[in-house]
């Protein structure tokens, strides 16, 4: 019974934690620009994050070693440090973007000065992470993030053009006006793929498995949570693309602000839809802000060998606790400069794809190693998918920055 509850809550948490501001922006805006033709990317990205999420959880359960232990052992100090610094930069940017997103939502809900709301969001996050346990944080933000399911309901109401939706799941090129629009399309393909596979998701997932004290007997629990939780999470991402395609595209609106995105459920369910959408975004962005700040602290502690863990009192792991506090403070300073959070999201998503191969290569090498993994070594499916995504992401990583520059951040 206890195990069943754990699986159920794990699935819901994985699902609720699936969406963050980058994915929201790129899914809805991508749908508004290119209709259903980006839907196949959601499937490719979801299978990718399932592959590496499952691998990171299995490695943690079997070897009790977190991701950056392995990165340092496999890649050495210099290459490992480069990966750590890049991962920290991306976590910091993503955390900043989510804090900005939360402040925007607070402004829409309650009004007030944006910069003051950024500070309020910071105080809220510091208090929550300091006083709540890891499990409580995971559950509260994961479960309340499920309010974002209102977008799935909205998608059903707004659209029943099933054959067209189905055709989007096959890789395709949309009908566009100029050849430059193809580059914008590829920019959205890369960005959406990256936002679905953001590296912090695997860092945080593996660290969570260790916080929960997983051992080799949890390998199947890990598999069920990842596959079912992320599959339902993908349903959310699909709904966001469909909302973009069916609600915003006909009106020629290219929504980038979270407030604009919330107009879709508002148009179907009125005020209740609007508030549910905004609250869902609040918890989804808030959860992602916390996960990024904690991931940065976990990664640094794991790389440098510090004592770590939310399960330890701060006095027993002082550097780890100071690290996540500092990440929140620096991320807030970034947002207080007045930079547009959506712009920050775009940079964080594009830079993420550059570090994804650096993160996943050592993970694949460990999961393929029978000396480390024993009977839980990668089977033929995990190995093939692992290699496929490593190659795909390496190509995306090379293309990401040129596409960002040439398309002017997707604006054409």
């Amino acid at each position, binding site marked *: 019974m206890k195990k069943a509850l754990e699986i159920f809550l794990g699935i819901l948490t994985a699902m609720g934690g699936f969406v963050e501001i980058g994915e929201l922006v790129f899914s809805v805006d991508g749908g508004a620009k290119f209709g259903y033709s980006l839907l196949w990317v959601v499937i490719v990205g979801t299978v990718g994050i399932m592959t590496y999420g499952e691998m990171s959880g299995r490695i943690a359960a079997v070897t009790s070693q977190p991701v950056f232990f392995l990165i340092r052992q496999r890649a050495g*100090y210099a290459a490992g440090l480069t990966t750590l610094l890049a991962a920290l930069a991306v976590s910091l940017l993503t955390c900043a973007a989510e804090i900005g997103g939360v402040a925007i939502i607070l402004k829409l809900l309650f009004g007030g000065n944006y910069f003051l709301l950024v500070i309020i969001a910071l105080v809220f996050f510091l208090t929550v992470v*300091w006083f709540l346990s890891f499990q409580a944080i995971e559950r509260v933000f994961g479960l309340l993030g499920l309010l974002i399911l209102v977008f799935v309901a909205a998608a059903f109401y707004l659209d029943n053009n099933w054959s067209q939706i189905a055709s989007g799941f096959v890789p395709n090129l949309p009908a566009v006006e100029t050849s430059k629009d193809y580059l914008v399309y590829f920019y959205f393909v890369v960005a959406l793929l990256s936002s679905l596979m953001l590296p912090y998701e695997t860092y945080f997932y593996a660290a969570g498995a260790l916080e929960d004290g997983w051992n080799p007997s949890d390998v199947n629990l890990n598999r069920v949570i990842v596959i079912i939780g992320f599959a339902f999470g993908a349903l959310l991402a699909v709904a966001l693309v469909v909302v973009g395609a069916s609600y915003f595209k006909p009106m020629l609106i290219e929504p980038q602000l979270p407030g604009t995105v919330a107009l879709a459920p508002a148009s179907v369910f009125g005020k209740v839809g609007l508030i549910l959408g905004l609250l869902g975004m609040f918890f989804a962005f808030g959860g992602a802000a916390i996960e990024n700040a904690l991931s940065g602290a976990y990664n640094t502690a794991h790389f440098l060998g510090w*004592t770590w863990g939310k399960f330890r*009192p701060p006095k027993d792991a*002082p550097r780890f606790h100071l690290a996540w506090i500092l990440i929140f403070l620096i991320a807030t300073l970034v947002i207080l400069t007045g930079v547009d959070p959506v712009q920050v999201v775009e940079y964080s998503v594009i830079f993420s794809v550059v570090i994804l191969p650096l993160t996943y290569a050592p993970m694949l090498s460990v999961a393929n190693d029978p000396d480390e993994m024993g009977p839980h070594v990668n089977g033929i499916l995990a190995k093939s998918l692992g290699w496929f995504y490593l190659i795909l992401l390496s190509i995306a990583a090379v293309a990401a920055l040129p596409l960002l520059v040439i398309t002017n951040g997707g604006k054409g």
Partner: protein
Amino acid sequence: MSRHYLDLSRELLDRQIVDSNHMLCGKVDDIEIEGKEALRVVAILVGNRAASGRLPELAKRVSRGLFGSQLIRIPWKEVDVITHQVKLKSPAAEFGLDERKGFAFKIVSLLPGSWKK
């Protein structure tokens, strides 16, 4: 099952160090080796001086400028057992590796509830 060799770069370098109380206290940042023909490990080195020494020249200088050049030398005879981590025979404080003596500890312990889980 025992082996009579240890692959230093795979099984010692960059491994987690834990003290006699199982407290995590840094990584094997470098290894001190002596001898001319028969080489032997005399100490494991911990700290940014050892770690940054493995970076290219410019990165090394930046790293030392930012994070200092602390170096802690742990004699090989202080190593108790090596599994996937390196366990020491004594508590971390004896080597100056106890986090609860540093400045992060001072800041964190000023905050309310810092002793609670």
